[in-house]
């Protein structure tokens, strides 16, 4: 009965590691079926909005209320967080809750692959798509409509990553507490619209009444949009903006870790 533990020889030529294979698989699955619709909306919708807004003449004129920025300048960060929020809140929770519902995660527990790696693969794929989309949107905004590229690149990257962390933690939390895939999609969609409202999608933050502006500053995407705006203009995001996003990331991240069920 002792034949097993001592016979491990390190494989000389390694095939792809489990993590690499899982990530490749998640990427492929993201381009198919229902998931592909989520992918298309996350990338395509902000891009479409950018092109439409860019084509409106008045959106390219400086607005006094916006501190001399054009409406398009104000909207670019909003469209960036739109892509990130769509990936994290609409696409991810349904997929993960679906995996639990179908028994995919439970099945993985019986293999040497820890199901935590599926979450890691999901993060990797979503983050990669988010980065590509952000770069694409910035390139189109700059090249097509002359929107200034962020002058404070470091601050811009930090703000973007914190926003992504806050959104993914929230998405993971939704996947953790939702009883099934349908509920996860529903809750994710509601949070998406709510957060995008406070990010200024329908009414940019500077145009909001004072009370709404206060609430907006305390939401993850309100803080994110202002932080990205600051970085675009060449300033570091304020500590309050960064701490606000970090708080959401940590709180929802811990809550998700606490409540996540594998089966």
């Amino acid at each position, binding site marked *: *009965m*002792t*034949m*097993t*533990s001592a016979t*491990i020889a390190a*494989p000389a030529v390694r*095939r*792809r*590691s*489990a993590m*690499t*294979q*899982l990530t490749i*698989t998640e990427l*492929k*699955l993201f381009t*198919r*079926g229902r*998931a592909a619709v989520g992918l298309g909306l996350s990338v395509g919708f902000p891009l479409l909005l950018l092109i439409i807004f860019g084509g409106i003449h008045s959106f390219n004129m400086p607005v006094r209320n916006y501190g001399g920025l054009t409406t398009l300048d104000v909207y670019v960060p909003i469209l960036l967080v739109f892509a990130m929020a769509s990936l994290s809140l609409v696409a991810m929770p349904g997929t993960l809750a*679906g*995996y639990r519902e*179908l*028994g*995919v995660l*439970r*099945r993985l*527990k*019986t*293999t*040497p*692959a820890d199901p935590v790696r599926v979450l890691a693969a999901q993060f990797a794929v979503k983050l990669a798509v988010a980065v590509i989309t952000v770069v694409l949107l910035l390139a189109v905004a700059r090249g097509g409509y002359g929107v200034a590229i962020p002058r404070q690149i470091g601050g811009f990257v930090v703000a973007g990553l914190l926003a992504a962390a806050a959104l993914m933690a929230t998405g993971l939390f939704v996947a953790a507490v939702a009883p099934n895939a349908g509920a996860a999609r529903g809750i994710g969609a509601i949070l998406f619209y709510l957060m995008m409202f406070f990010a200024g999608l329908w009414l940019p933050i500077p145009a909001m009444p004072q009370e709404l502006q206060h609430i907006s500053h305390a939401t993850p995407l309100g803080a994110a949009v202002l932080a990205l705006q600051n970085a675009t203009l060449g300033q570091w995001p304020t500590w309050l903006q960064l701490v606000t996003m970090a708080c959401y990331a940590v709180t929802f991240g811990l809550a998700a870790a606490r409540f996540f069920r594998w089966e």
Partner: protein
Amino acid sequence: MRLIARCRDAEGMSAVIEVQHLHKKYGDTAAVGDVSFTVHEGEIFGILGPNGAGKTTTVECIEGLREPDRGQISVLGLDPQRDRAELTQLLGVQLQESRLPDQLRVAEALELYSSFYRDPADWRELMEVLGISAKARTPFRKLSGGQQQRLSIALALVGSPRVAVLDELTTGLDPQARRDTWDLIEAVRDRGVTIVLVTHFMEEAERLCDRVALIDAGQVVALDTPAALAERVETEQRIRFRPSVPVDDWLLESLPEVTRVTHKGDAVVVTGTSKALNAVISVLARNHIVAEQLRVEQADLEDAFLALTGRHSSTSEGTGTHAPAKTKG
């Protein structure tokens, strides 16, 4: 060599799985009361019982998915909880009601799962053996029930396991697919894999299993070969035939092996001990009577199951009208 080894195993030579006094409660309900059994190397071991008997809970403890409240489990000398990482390399699992992502294709699933293992089987060959090569590029959602089941078996075997636990393998399959799957399981066993088969189909257990543990209400009520289990309840035999000429009841009733003679139309129904058939045929032959349309009703695993679990006991004569004594395996 393997055959010899397997014969010796039947004498208890090498245990692959040992379960001792397993207890598992969910809240206040005991799912598994006190389960003990040993699985030998190279055998197909059946865990048979009605729905909700505790079969799945038992194998989930073996797989390490659930932690027992009490009792010991050893799989290939490993503790399913403590040695989880090593166990998953050696134990292939097919879960009841576990699916794959809808859009995942057959070949992708196999390639993915094979990347998890230290020493995986050739997944292309496995696909061939299981007859799903033609479906390599088909997404899981578009596979038939039988094909999904085959893929599920392939995934259980892709890590070259020494033991495979298959839960409700053929549930939901049509009879042909079920028979094909049975052939497949025998082929897998012939490759040297020890198999634990959870089922509620008598026919499946009878056909495939070397030994069967009958579980009811969280207890092992019997543990033996399917034939030996059937014999246990084979206290009575019913012989039905149409005599070529009318036969005097007295002729049959005088036999010590016969307990009762009744008539159903032209047919005579003789009830007696397991040796009644020989006696009846002999006496008929001596009197130059031919027994036409002769039929003998004998206990099978189904009867054993009914008798031992005390289910349906009122509907069938001879399988015990009172609750059977429970014997711990």
